[in-house]
């Protein structure tokens, strides 16, 4: 790939992200005028007389739009980076970060919080519960990874881990359905539970920015650190081992960081399907397979995708807001089907 094309990809991606960040802050149920925002900003610092429109615009911007926009961008970036790492670890370009069951772990913990009523009584308890559930499931996946090293004669340990993830997902999914069923007698509670589990970006505050921002920062730092080892892993586990890769350490670090990123995203916005699957795939087509560039570009494109989905979800049936997850699912599933219908290129055949 030429340096010129690579540079164009980065410029277009950053420009798209910038445009979507601005659009997400300005457009919505109440479009914000630039003059009103400037007035509100001036009033904030005592340099202008506040108008009603200016005060309202400033309040909407700072209390609703900025946390929502930042949460959308951070969650999108986190899921996309987790997807890159999952695909690298499993050497499979159709793997998803949800394969370990982390997202299902966050969902069941959130459902439990709703059933017990704690999510209603203590709003901060919900993201914390989802985060703890997701991390606990990741630890379960790590335990499976450790045990699976003694099963290498049956399947490779990574394949074993992937298969275990399917089982964990199914088990936790069944548990979540059970817990939601238990809350059906109280429509308000079950409605809120379902609304959270479907995934969306309505009513996000700075606590959601904090949880997704911190996990993304840690995830990006570790993701960039393991990126070149994941490149070598693409040659196969034994070859990677012979090229000085400590497979056990790489597996633990990567699973841990995938878990952290997904946990942060689920805690902040519930489940946003397909982001972690399709964004790395698109990025790989644009700048090639090297994981270092892929981690960075996917973070930008994941943020852009979720911002776009959220904006579309706000606009499509306004004044009703659709959950962004519907849009990510529709776009992601269509893209996925198109991929499957094309001849295989790359990936372990």
């Amino acid at each position, binding site marked *: *790939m030429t340096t010129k094309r690579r540079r164009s990809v980065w410029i277009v991606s950053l420009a798209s992200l910038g445009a979507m960040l601005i659009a997400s802050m300005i457009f919505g149920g109440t479009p914000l005028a630039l003059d009103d925002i400037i007035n509100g900003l001036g009033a904030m610092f005592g340099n202008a007389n506040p108008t009603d429109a200016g005060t309202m615009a400033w309040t909407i911007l700072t209390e609703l739009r900025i946390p929502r926009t930042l949460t959308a961008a951070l969650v999108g970036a986190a899921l996309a980076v987790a997807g890159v790492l999952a695909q690298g670890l499993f*050497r*499979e*370009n159709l793997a998803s970060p949800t394969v370990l069951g982390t997202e299902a772990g966050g969902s069941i913990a959130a459902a439990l919080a709703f059933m017990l009523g704690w999510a209603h009584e203590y709003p901060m308890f919900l993201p914390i519960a989802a985060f703890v559930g997701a991390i606990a499931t990741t630890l379960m996946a790590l335990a499976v990874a450790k045990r699976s090293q003694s099963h290498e*004669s049956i399947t490779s340990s990574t394949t074993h881990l992937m298969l275990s993830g399917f089982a964990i997902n199914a088990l936790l999914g069944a548990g979540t359905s059970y817990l939601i069923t238990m809350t059906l007698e109280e429509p308000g509670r079950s409605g809120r539970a379902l609304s959270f589990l479907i995934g969306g970006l309505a009513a996000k505050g700075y606590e959601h920015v904090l949880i997704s921002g911190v996990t993304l920062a840690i995830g990006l730092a570790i993701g960039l650190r393991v*990126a*070149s*080892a994941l*490149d*070598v*892993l*693409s*040659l*196969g586990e*034994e*070859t990677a*081992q*012979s*090229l*000085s*890769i*400590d497979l056990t350490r790489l597996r633990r670090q990567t699973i841990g960081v995938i878990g952290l990123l997904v946990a942060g995203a689920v805690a902040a916005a519930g489940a946003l399907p397909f982001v972690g699957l399709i964004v790395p795939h698109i990025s*790989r087509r644009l700048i*090639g*397979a*090297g994981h*270092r560039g892929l981690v960075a570009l996917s973070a930008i494109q994941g943020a852009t995708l979720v911002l776009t989905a959220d904006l579309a979800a706000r606009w499509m049936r306004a004044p009703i807001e659709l959950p962004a997850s519907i849009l990510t699912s529709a776009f992601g599933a269509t893209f996925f089907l198109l991929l499957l219908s094309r001849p295989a*290129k*790359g*990936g*372990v*055949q």
Partner: protein
Amino acid sequence: MTQHEPLGLNNVSYVVAKHRSLDQVNSQFARGKITALIGPNGAGKSTLLKVLAGIISPTEGHVIGLGKTPKDHSKICTWLPPTTQVAFDYSVFEVVRMGLFPWHQGRPSRKDDESVMAALTDLCAHELADRSITQLSSGERQRVMLARALIAPSSYLLLDEPLTNLDLQTSFMMLNVLRARAKSGTGIIISLHDIALAAELTDDFVCLKQGRVVSQGSLNQALTEGLAENVFGVKANNAAGRWFISGEL
């Protein structure tokens, strides 16, 4: 290239699922020589190479000359499997550069990039540098994988059936490259099915059958017509230093 104890196996056995893939193997592998591992399918050649590469640990016995840490050992030995499936669409250049990973640890220098082009040029594969690895023919891919192994400045090259999928011309070019590399002091241990080719190429033999060493040493000591018949079940004739193999259907 660093100086260290020559690689060897001391009473090494490798047992998996009650099957002894290697059984009490004792061998020494000199640097500067090409040693062929020969034997029928399932004889333990690939297992022996993996043990030497530090990919698997012996169930009994020990490897002589093993690096202090796995990272050290990866600089002593470079291992090439018979086939490699690359998971993603890397360029040939990127794949070959991965061969230097034990040295650059993910931070390749300009000198490393120059080494990649030199390794590809040695195997007449420089025109493939920008191509995607997944779009190559199996022969081209094998050439690239050989370049990935040959780029490493390690003391030993452990090559498992490296000539698979190569046409005759490329095979001979490859053999010349290996001879030159051995002359520069690298120990090359290569598993081969073709006895005649092994006799042409190599200095020493280790002949395996059912995990046991049945013969080893220099060409004249180790390879006899009787041994070929016993191990491979084929007729082998040595005429004026050249081996001719024939079998019955």
